[in-house]
């Protein structure tokens, strides 16, 4: 089995050893739970409870605000304390439902089925939609929308993105080891939605145990196979993943479905299976609490709404004074200014670093070394795009395909002059995309 990959990319310090061998431990919250109404791409959810209402775990508290949206469920039983704006991990104020935990974890009944594979297609999609499943790898795109392309006949591949190429993250790794049957089951369900689809489970070669385990499970499955991809960042980027596994290329104006592909991450697929089989809505996820500032890095099974600070305490607290805390991985995660944030559907990790490498270095003059060009998975010239943004030349930025950037950050990572390339290119992309929306 060869190593599939793409051109470009970087090899940052992996840091996965910190938490990869720590089994997932459920964590029960003690404080209030906060549910931002927008924890997915698309319209925010609309609350269906009011202040003072008593809710059970698994009860709907906010319904989808449109087709591209997802409902939100209570993860504990308790009382609705308030519905008010709270800050989320990207530091924006979002209307949120706050629930006071009664500590009893009384749950609603779930509508489980014995054989999820016998369900009709519409029923499967409906159950995924009702469960509020969104992309748990980071973007938070509602999964039922992904699974409802315009032309279902033209879907050739369902790709399970099990690369987990972000350094430090081990939540998907643990899930693959702990619940491989659910992963394969979810894949089979998703493949069964499309007449012509094949399933590909793509795993980076730094997880040989997962490759072995899952290959064994799918050896008699005619429509699902495992493919080994090279350990390289950003291998798990959707476009790069599609290219590595199928040889097809998409650009910023296309959806994966335009190339006959649908890509979903490990945790998402496992939850698809659970939603369809057990009828359980999405109320918890695995979160890696790690970094060199953490006493005892671990993987927790966390109920949504749990506060970051509680989880850090549960991981033994800080070993060193942290200089930077990141929600997500070090390459694409969001830096937070304190720990008062809730875990939401796409929180993969809480990474606490005792040393901020960005603040420690100062950008110096570009020496035109070309390393950013070498590593750019989108085959752009990051140094020049960033220079164009410094000059405010949006027009040339657009001509030089600046919008094709996937914001992976490889250029900033590799730059010997420590220039903030990805940051200025991201700003440029946002300006161009906003201008385009205005024109429409």
């Amino acid at each position: 089995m060869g190593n599939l990959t793409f051109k470009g990319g970087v090899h940052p310090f992996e840091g996965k050893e910190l938490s990869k061998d720590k089994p997932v431990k459920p964590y029960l919250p003690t404080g209030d739970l906060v549910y931002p109404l927008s924890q997915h791409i698309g319209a925010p959810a609309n609350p269906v409870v009011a202040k003072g209402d008593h809710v059970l775990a698994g009860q709907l508290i906010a319904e989808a605000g449109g087709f591209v949206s997802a409902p939100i469920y209570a993860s504990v039983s308790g009382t609705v304390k308030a519905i008010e704006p709270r800050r989320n991990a990207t530091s924006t104020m979002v209307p949120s439902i706050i629930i006071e935990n009664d500590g009893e974890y009384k749950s609603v009944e779930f509508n489980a089925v014995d054989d999820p594979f016998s369900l009709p297609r519409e029923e499967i999609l409906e159950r995924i939609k009702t469960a509020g499943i969104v992309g748990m790898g980071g973007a938070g795109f509602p999964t039922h929308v992904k699974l409802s392309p315009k032309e279902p006949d033209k879907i050739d591949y369902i790709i399970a993105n099990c690369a987990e190429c972000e350094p430090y993250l081990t939540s998907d790794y643990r899930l693959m080891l702990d619940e491989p049957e659910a992963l394969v089951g979810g894949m089979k369900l998703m493949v069964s939605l499309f007449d012509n689809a094949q399933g590909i489970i793509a795993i980076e070669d730094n997880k040989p145990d997962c490759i072995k385990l899952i290959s064994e499970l799918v050896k008699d499955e005619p429509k699902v196979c495992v493919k080994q991809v090279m350990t390289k960042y950003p291998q798990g980027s959707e476009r790069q993943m599609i290219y590595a596994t199928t040889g097809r290329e998409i650009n910023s104006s296309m959806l994966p479905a335009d190339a006959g592909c649908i890509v979903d991450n490990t945790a998402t697929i496992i939850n698809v299976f659970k939603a369809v089989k057990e009828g359980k809505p999405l109320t918890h996820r695995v979160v890696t609490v790690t970094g060199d500032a953490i006493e005892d890095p671990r993987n927790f099974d966390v109920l949504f709404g749990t506060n970051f600070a509680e989880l850090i305490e549960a991981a033994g607290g800080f070993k060193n004074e942290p200089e930077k805390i990141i929600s997500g991985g070090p390459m694409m995660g969001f830096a937070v200014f304190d720990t008062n944030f809730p875990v939401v559907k796409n929180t993969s990790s809480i990474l606490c670093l005792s040393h901020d490498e960005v603040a420690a270095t100062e950008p110096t003059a570009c020496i035109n070394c070309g390393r950013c060009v070498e590593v750019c998975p989108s085959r752009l010239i990051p140094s020049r795009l960033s220079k164009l943004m410094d000059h405010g030349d949006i027009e040339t930025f657009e001509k030089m395909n600046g919008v094709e950037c996937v914001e992976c950050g490889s250029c900033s990572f590799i730059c010997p002059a420590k220039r903030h390339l990805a940051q200025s290119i991201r700003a440029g992309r946002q300006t161009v995309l906003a201008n385009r929306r205005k024109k429409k």
Partner: protein
Amino acid sequence: MNELLNVSSSPHVRSKDTTQKIMLYVIIALLPATCFGIYNFGISALVLVLVTIASCVASEYIFNLITKRKQTINDLSAVVTGLLLALNLPSSFPWYLAVLGGVFGIIIVKMVFGGLGQNFMNPALGARCFLLISFAGYMTNFTYDGKSTATPLALLKAGEQVNSMDMFLGTCAGTIGETSVIAILIGAIFLILMGVIDLSIPASYILTFAAFTLLFSGHMFDINFLVAELCGGGLMLGAFFMATDYATSPITTKGRIIFGICLGILTGLFRFYGASAEGVSYAIIFSNLLVPLIEKISVPTAFGKGGKKHE
């Protein structure tokens, strides 16, 4: 934890490479050639090396001081320029003129255009060409073993025979750093292994020049002539250490290959059709001027831009 944490845009980690480290690798890679030059030409070579480095670093320091800019000498790029300039001078060159060369290279070629990364021409080569035009007598006065002698390439141009083995080892007349091909290659291999340079420029340069020599030099199947042309006249030093200068070469691989081909053709033209036996310096600074044009035609196709909707 009372204070707020650091917040910045992703990514939050950085590679260990720095500009300073890259320059240090280049200096290390130049050491074999430098040491051989000092062994070959004696103490006057060492004096020139020290003088040009001091001149370059001091020029940059004073320029930054006068213009009230942030001090940049820590990036070591001035040391590289000084070292390269010395390696491009004959050992008999007067040291006070070498100081002038260093000042010219740093102030005129590099700093007034904005400093590191902004210069359009290799500072060391700019300085060498300035000295070559201004002090042609000193610059073309080569001594070896105490005797005044011509460089192997000049002998070759005059129709005489040269010993290619001497040229490969470096035991012949020439500038301080250009004579020993083996010392230069040791440094070049180090740079390639450390990921500082790749083969795109040197390989396309050397191959193009070899092809040009076979076709147009009038010595078609004279292998000895070809080897002598490749080993002589600073071609190796130029190909691995000066043409690969980041700031003055294209940024994409495709651009670098076009750049190398331009270099090969120009070097051939200068050597075989020009008045002088040498052509590497002029070929490189001339090609430096072509870089903006090469950059225009070598923009890579973005990922997925060739992609069509799958039917």
